[in-house]
């Protein structure tokens, strides 16, 4: 008895079982998934792409560290979340972004979008999307991808595919070869339209189950459904569903933006609804708004619907449902 009493027992509260599923590990896996597109971007755009990504990462991490010094929080700079966000923001920036544009974008993303709400796990909208939306509203002229890529020629028509379809009608999709669109030979930000490389990264994350399969697939399904309906109604006005999936940031949005952990639902059925709604909204924005590629606004809109969708939850056994819980 005395022997038992003298032995030290661990009295920590749960969870007792730990494994390497830490935030910094997950974020590093995301960076690994984004790596093919990063490499392809530097390969295609040269040192400009490296400059934009490097500056974004530098500013984002610096703001994160500064914000942590002013307002200490659990969300430490060492968890790589700022790096992932910075790469995602950089992917949507044009090839010739000036340094101050990236500086302002990183500030809004990290300080306003992330830290003011309490850091990773607490923000209501994707910080990179918030920052990009503010930049797009403030400096629309700087986000004219067509003008930014005048110096480059890949042997295809150097206009944003979605913009051409928007102005000339659905027939303009034949200007572009689907192989070119798939390989990322299309006018866009430095990384958001590298469809094949993003697909490789996204499928990698999905196969190692670091992102759920429901959100991206439902996103693509919603997009295809809406595009198909619109194409049936007005074939001259809208292009085919495949064209919409391959052009602009659809695949990027489905695999890397809609699946962001903090702003997406946690249960399977809400995930399906969330993704489907996102794809549908994206197609509606592309079809009926002034913006040719509305990825940012579609993602921000579904982010706002997330708390509502999270109320759809599995039934708890043995507990009687009362009221409107």
């Amino acid at each position, binding site marked *: 008895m005395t022997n038992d009493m003298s032995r030290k027992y661990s009295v920590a509260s749960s969870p007792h079982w730990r494994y390497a599923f830490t935030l910094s590990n997950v974020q590093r896996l995301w960076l690994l998934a984004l790596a093919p597109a990063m490499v392809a971007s530097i390969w295609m755009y040269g040192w400009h792409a490296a400059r934009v990504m490097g500056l974004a990462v530098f500013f984002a991490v610096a703001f994160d560290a500064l914000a942590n010094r002013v307002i200490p929080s659990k969300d430490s700079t060492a968890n790589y979340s700022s790096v992932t966000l910075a790469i995602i923001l950089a992917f949507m920036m044009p090839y010739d972004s000036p340094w101050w544009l990236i500086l302002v974008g990183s500030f809004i993303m990290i300080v*306003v979008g992330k830290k*003011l709400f309490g850091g990773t796990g607490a923000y209501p909208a994707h910080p990179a999307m918030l920052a990009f939306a503010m930049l797009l*509203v403030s400096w629309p002229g700087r986000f004219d991808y067509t003008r930014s890529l005048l110096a480059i020629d890949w042997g295809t028509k150097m206009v944003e595919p979605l913009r051409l379809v928007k102005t000339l009608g659905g027939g303009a999709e034949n200007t572009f070869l689907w192989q070119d669109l798939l390989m990322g030979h299309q006018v866009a930000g430095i990384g958001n339209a590298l469809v094949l490389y993003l697909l490789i990264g996204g499928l990698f994350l999905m196969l190692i189950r670091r992102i759920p399969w429901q959100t991206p697939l439902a996103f693509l399904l919603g997009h295809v459904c809406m595009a198909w309906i619109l194409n049936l109604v007005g074939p001259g006005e809208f292009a085919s569903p495949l064209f919409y999936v391959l052009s602009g940031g659809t695949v990027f949005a489905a695999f890397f933006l809609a699946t962001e952990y903090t702003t997406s639902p946690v249960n399977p059925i809400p995930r399906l609804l969330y993704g489907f709604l996102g794809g549908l909204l994206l197609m509606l924005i592309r079809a009926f708004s002034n913006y040719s590629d509305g990825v940012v606004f579609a993602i921000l809109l579904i982010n706002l619907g997330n708390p509502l969708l999270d109320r759809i939850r599995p039934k708890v056994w043995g507990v009687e449902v009362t009221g409107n819980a």
Partner: protein
Amino acid sequence: MKFKQVLLHGLWKDLPPFRLVLGLCPALAITSSAEKGLGMGLAATFVLIFSNTFISALRKSIPDKVRIASYIVIIATLVVLVEMSMKAFFFPLSQQLGIYIPLIVVNCIILGRAEAFASRNPVFLSMTDGLSVGIGFTISLTLVGSIREILGAGTWFGMSLFGASFEPFGFMVEAPGAFLCLGLLLGLMNAYSRKRGEMFIQS
């Protein structure tokens, strides 16, 4: 002592719109430039001083049951005066402020001060209270307007501050920029007064 307290409370303790969190509609809608903020603040200050004075003078003869209606009559009279004089003497500014000048009638700060202060205090103190809160409101609106105008347009009271190479942060003069600016200022003020140990944050 009481007089000094009343004179200063509108500048920090009850600073509108940050501390009272009243009068947010003009604070968000018309602060896209410093000039508009100042104009709106001065118009509201004028109405506030005189509405407080008249309501305080009539506080014994206004029946309790119809007091809100009576206050509105007094405030509306003053607002019509302000609106007409602004149209006569400051026509461009009144064009810019538009509907927000007549809307001073339903500004919560004015009705709030009438109800909370002027209806139970003597005339001179009420006038001081109106002046104090009005000046606080003017300073706040001019501050929000200045921040938004400097960042969003690169000018201050119409003067160009930066060179031609400056590309203004247009988001700040749009409606969402007002929410961002007001929220950040409110947060900073709350953080500052928490540091000073003031108990005002209502839970």
